């Protein structure tokens, strides 16, 4: 039996088994799911080399599975994140109902994602894509109360639109190019924007809905924030990257030319969509009061950067997109895990209700701090590398100078919600309600700490990620991708030495930390958050001095025009108008036999009158 089929089988059997085990012992479900995913990834990483292929026939169709360097890169993310997320789930999901349903769907989602990256023909791509979508839909509605159901339906509708678009494109490819293999389609120029322009457009539509690109991003914030956090790490970290995977695939035809002027308009449109997504995601993230929702909007914004990177079509730009893909999975995965841990331990992630958890959950805070530094793109941590690549790509290699300002605006505004997240959950007044909150269990901490260490290391030695990313870029048509282990060089030859920066920061940190700690050590006292200078007033135990509502009101006021654009409203209006429009057709069916008889008569009359025109 083919090794790749074994992996799929492991995941499928695992999915069924966990579902069955749940009826015996719900404690074992999580561990079973974790072990199955671990087994699948071990088999994958040890047994499958890059360039592996497997062809077979099914129902008269030539199907082909395999792994290029490009898909291998995404498989890293899928398996890495899945294993960590399932380890995290064991404790996180403890005590909740319907675990078999949860873990079964979870493993099925992993199967779907893995299937998408290994598919080398359109049929299996579509099938796996649908498996992924449906399994994830089941997880989105896991917390099934009324509102979640409607949000889930929103996700489903957009996914369905994407799937139809993809299906249409696939059918047209079959019709026009007589092939179902992706590589053949690329070779025949199916993704070219010259000949049959609707094919790549439809495919892009399908993929960008998954990547939550403006204006199809409206499903994402609610779906991300309403599903269980341990799943959202995958949902935002890995599954949204399937859209990125697809967009990269479609753009291969552009990259193959390696001429920066290739289809400039397509890239410009997509780049601007990405930029606007980033801005909208950011400005909506910073007005949220729920930490989960904040992270969800932030995910949308970060995917915007990735799309911008893809749209540049230059080496640095694609490198930026691929690097951001990984680093976003890492830090956003960690942050969603942090949010989950807080939810589990403190009961809620509503920032207006809790604050001051830093003394209760120090390790979780550490993870949150490092991940937020990465999210904000601050130097010693990995996020900076992605931001640097993106800016340099836009400034030195792309001709889109206004877009770089849009991206910069978005990433500067990202400082605002980064701070909001840390302050809202961990800093601020220690409140009475959160006095007896405990640190998260160790199995939840381990995955978070692993992700944190990856984020730190990738800041000093980004070459670890550049290496597979460079291979992946070579797989989709770039030649001579250069990279260095721990420094960054742009097109003009200017170098930023990250290793040196990390060392310098480390050295200064140690010196100043020792100085400030030891100077007057005996005379330094750590006091609680109630001992603050509030004009001599002594805050009562029950008084809440946290500042949580309308946190960035000045910014909101200054940027009021931006907030008046609400995509949700536009979609809602569209839906209502469509409903009215189709309501007109429904009126034709009156339920009265005489009306139907009239329709038949009218039909016959029309037929008779225009028979020469119709049957000519």
């Amino acid at each position, binding site marked *: 039996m083919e090794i790749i089929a074994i992996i799929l089988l492991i995941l499928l059997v695992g999915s069924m088994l966990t579902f069955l085990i749940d009826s015996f012992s719900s404690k074992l479900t999580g561990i079973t799911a974790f072990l199955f995913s671990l087994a699948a990834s071990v088999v994958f990483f040890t047994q499958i080399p890059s360039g592996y292929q497997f062809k077979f026939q099914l129902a008269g169709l030539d199907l082909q599975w395999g792994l290029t360097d490009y898909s291998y890169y995404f498989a890293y993310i899928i398996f890495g994140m899945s294993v960590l997320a399932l380890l995290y789930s064991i404790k996180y999901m403890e005590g909740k109902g319907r675990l078999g349903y949860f873990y079964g769907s979870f493993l099925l989602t992993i199967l779907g994602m893995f299937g998408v990256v290994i598919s080398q023909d359109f049929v299996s791509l579509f099938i796996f894509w649908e498996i992924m979508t449906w399994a994830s839909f089941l997880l989105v509605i896991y917390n099934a109360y009324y509102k979640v159901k409607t949000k889930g339906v929103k996700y489903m509708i957009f996914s369905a639109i994407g799937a139809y678009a993809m299906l249409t494109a696939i059918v047209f490819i079959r019709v026009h190019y007589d092939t179902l293999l992706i590589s053949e389609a690329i070779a025949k120029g199916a993704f070219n924007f010259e000949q049959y322009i609707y094919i790549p457009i439809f495919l892009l539509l399908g993929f960008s809905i998954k990547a939550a690109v403006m204006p199809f991003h409206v499903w994402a914030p609610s779906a991300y924030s309403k599903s269980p956090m341990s799943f959202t790490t995958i949902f935002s970290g890995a599954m949204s990257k399937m859209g990125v995977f697809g967009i990269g695939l479609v753009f291969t035809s552009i990259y193959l030319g390696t001429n920066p002027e290739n289809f400039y308009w397509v890239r410009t449109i997509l780049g601007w969509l990405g930029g606007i997504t980033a801005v909208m995601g950011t400005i909506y993230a910073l007005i949220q009061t729920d930490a989960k929702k904040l992270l969800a909007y932030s995910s949308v914004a970060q995917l915007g950067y990735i799309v911008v990177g893809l749209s540049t079509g230059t080496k640095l730009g694609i490198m930026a997109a691929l690097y951001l893909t990984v680093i976003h999975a890492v830090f956003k995965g960690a942050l969603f895990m942090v949010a989950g841990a807080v939810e589990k331990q403190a009961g809620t992630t509503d920032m207006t209700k809790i604050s001051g958890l830093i003394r209760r959950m120090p390790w979780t805070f550490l993870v949150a701090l490092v991940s937020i530094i990465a999210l904000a793109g601050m130097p010693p941590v990995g996020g900076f590398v992605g931001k640097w690549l993106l800016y340099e790509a836009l400034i030195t290699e792309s001709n889109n100078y206004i877009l770089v300002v849009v991206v910069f605006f978005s990433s500067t505004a990202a400082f605002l919600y980064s701070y909001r997240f840390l302050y809202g959950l961990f800093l601020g007044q220690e409140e009475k309600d959160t006095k007896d909150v405990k640190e998260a269990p160790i199995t939840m901490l381990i995955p978070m700490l692993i992700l944190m260490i990856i984020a730190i290391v990738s800041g000093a030695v980004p070459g670890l990620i550049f290496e597979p990313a460079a291979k992946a870029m070579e797989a989709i048509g770039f030649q001579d991708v250069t990279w260095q282990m721990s420094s960054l060089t742009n097109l003009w030859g200017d170098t930023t030495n990250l290793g040196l920066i990390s060392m310098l920061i480390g050295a200064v940190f140690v010196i100043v930390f020792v100085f400030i700690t030891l100077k007057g050590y005996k005379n330094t006292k750590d*006091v609680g958050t109630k001992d603050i200078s509030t004009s*001599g007033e*002594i805050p009562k135990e029950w008084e809440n001095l946290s500042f949580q509502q309308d946190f960035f009101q000045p910014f909101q006021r200054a940027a009021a025009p931006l907030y008046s654009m609400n995509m949700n409203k536009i979609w809602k209006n569209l839906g209502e108008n469509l409903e009215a429009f189709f309501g007109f057709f429904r009126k034709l069916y009156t339920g009265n036999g005489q009306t139907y008889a009239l329709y038949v008569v009218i039909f016959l009359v029309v037929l008779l009158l225009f028979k020469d025109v119709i049957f000519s």
Partner: protein
Amino acid sequence: MDNNKNIEQVSKIKTIGIPTQEEIKQAQIDFSPRCTSAGRVNDKETQKMVEYIMNFARKHSLFVLAYGTGCGAIEIPATMTSRYDAERFGMRGAATPRQADVLLITGYLSTKTLKRVIRVYEQMQDPKYVIAFGSCTINGGMYFDSYNTINALDRYLPVDVYIAGCMPRPESVINGIVKLQGLIQNGNAGGGKCYKDNLDWYRENQQKVIKNWDFPDDYNW
């Protein structure tokens, strides 16, 4: 030094009319605040070089937290701005007790305000000084018989310098500041140290006035 004695004394004074000089002297000795000589940080003779330099810096860099009670608050802008320019002595406004060195109390203190002033004083960081301003802080001034205003501030906080007057003009304020600078340089402005040493005595007095005592149990320093 308990309070009843004072009441008796004062009542006596009232009944017999003008007291003799001896009586006043005796009463003043009995009433003397805790922190005039007891609060010496270090003597001028035994001062070391480092302390001399530090005291020099302290003296020339007074961050003032003006607790604007009463009518004296209006004198502070005049003192700080162009006409009198207290900034040339290194004075500077501090907005919070954490950054401040000098607590400037600019007038009468109701019991309600006193509680906040004490809290603010305790939040300041050593070395810290108190300048009390106007006759209200010295002996109650025109509010001597008010049911809600304390009469002598040095029973509740260690006052380093009193500035007399109702209200003292900016010249007097500057005079007081210069006086405080001299005390700091000589190592005599040890109000914070004195407060720490005699905390029980101060607490007792404070709790007599502030009925509903809800301070945190431990004074930080």
